């Protein structure tokens, strides 16, 4: 899609009136196409009126192809970061929760399921996240253990 002069183009009356005072007059908008459909758009702006002709549109379409691939790949990178971070956090929290289960199992002689149930009960009663309850329990047990090692 091309517009030679957005301030007078009836397709975007509000957008044109706002950007024209900023010096934007020419617009070339190209879809980023993939096999799955339209991924987004690449918009090119110019100060000059009628800056984009058929040739410019053709060149833009050539750029839009690798641009669409780059956007897709950026999605893969962003989502990989998200999943890896959440999985790592979940494993770290779970390790703490399992250590807290072990502490309770040793302290009161219960099995793993009962220890977990007690942790959940404390979490609900104190309105605190389970891994924070576990962290506090582990930290307290570690403090006592370290005090035993360093006591005269």
């Amino acid at each position: 899609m091309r517009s030679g002069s957005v301030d007078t183009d009836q397709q975007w009356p509000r957008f044109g009136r706002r950007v024209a005072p900023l010096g934007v007059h020419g617009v070339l908008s190209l879809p980023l196409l993939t096999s799955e459909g339209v991924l987004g758009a690449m918009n090119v702006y110019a100060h000059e009126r009628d800056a984009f002709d058929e040739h410019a549109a053709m060149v833009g379409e050539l750029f839009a192809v690798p641009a669409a691939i780059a956007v897709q790949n950026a999605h893969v990178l962003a989502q990989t970061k998200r999943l890896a971070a959440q999985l790592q956090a979940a494993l770290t929290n779970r390790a703490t929760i399992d250590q807290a289960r072990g502490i309770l199992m040793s302290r009161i002689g219960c099995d793993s399921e009962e220890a977990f149930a007690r942790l959940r009960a404390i979490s609900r009663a104190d309105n605190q996240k389970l891994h924070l309850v576990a962290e506090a329990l582990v930290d307290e047990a570690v403090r006592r253990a370290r005090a035993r090692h360093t006591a005269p």
Partner: protein
Amino acid sequence: MEISAALASDLASLSQALDDPESDLETQLRRLVADIQHAVASYLGLRLTITLRGAEVTLTARERTWSTTDAATSLRLPLAAISPAQPGSHLVLYAGTPGAFVDLAADLSYALALGPATLSLDDDLSDPVSESGIAGLDGQATINQALGVLIERGYTPESAREELSRLADLDGGHLHRAAESIIHSSTYGNRPSEIEPDSGSPQADD
């Protein structure tokens, strides 16, 4: 993507540990697979390995089409390149068309300013994903519970790991079995032979 009941259950269990209703690992995994499928038409599966304190947990997810199509290419991304991950954590992707990951590898290298040897293409074809699931979870749970038992008995975290390793060495290196023995002793009161931390050794860890 194949999501077995066991994989869904493990993902749900791990999501609970995040304690955040907005965070659901199965949803995040499905989104990642969808994004990869949009970028790589012949995508077949992935293996995501997280290393924590030397122990590995590996999430694998494969497409149903992998049973009838051989993996022709792979891409390995060390997670340390994109997040504060421990060495050994990595993502491996598999696809059925040779060269399918070339564009993705190029864009990742550019976006992350990676050196030429950081990403590996086609180095993991001899180690494909056999089925969807999460490996290493149960083992880690047992080991961490055993560490908790030892900490409650007065071991520091560091000496607890040493004690667990020592007991495993006495049992031919079976760390998981040693951990189970410690847990069993906490429940039924029969402690395996061990050195009590307040009877002279081990030394303080601070």
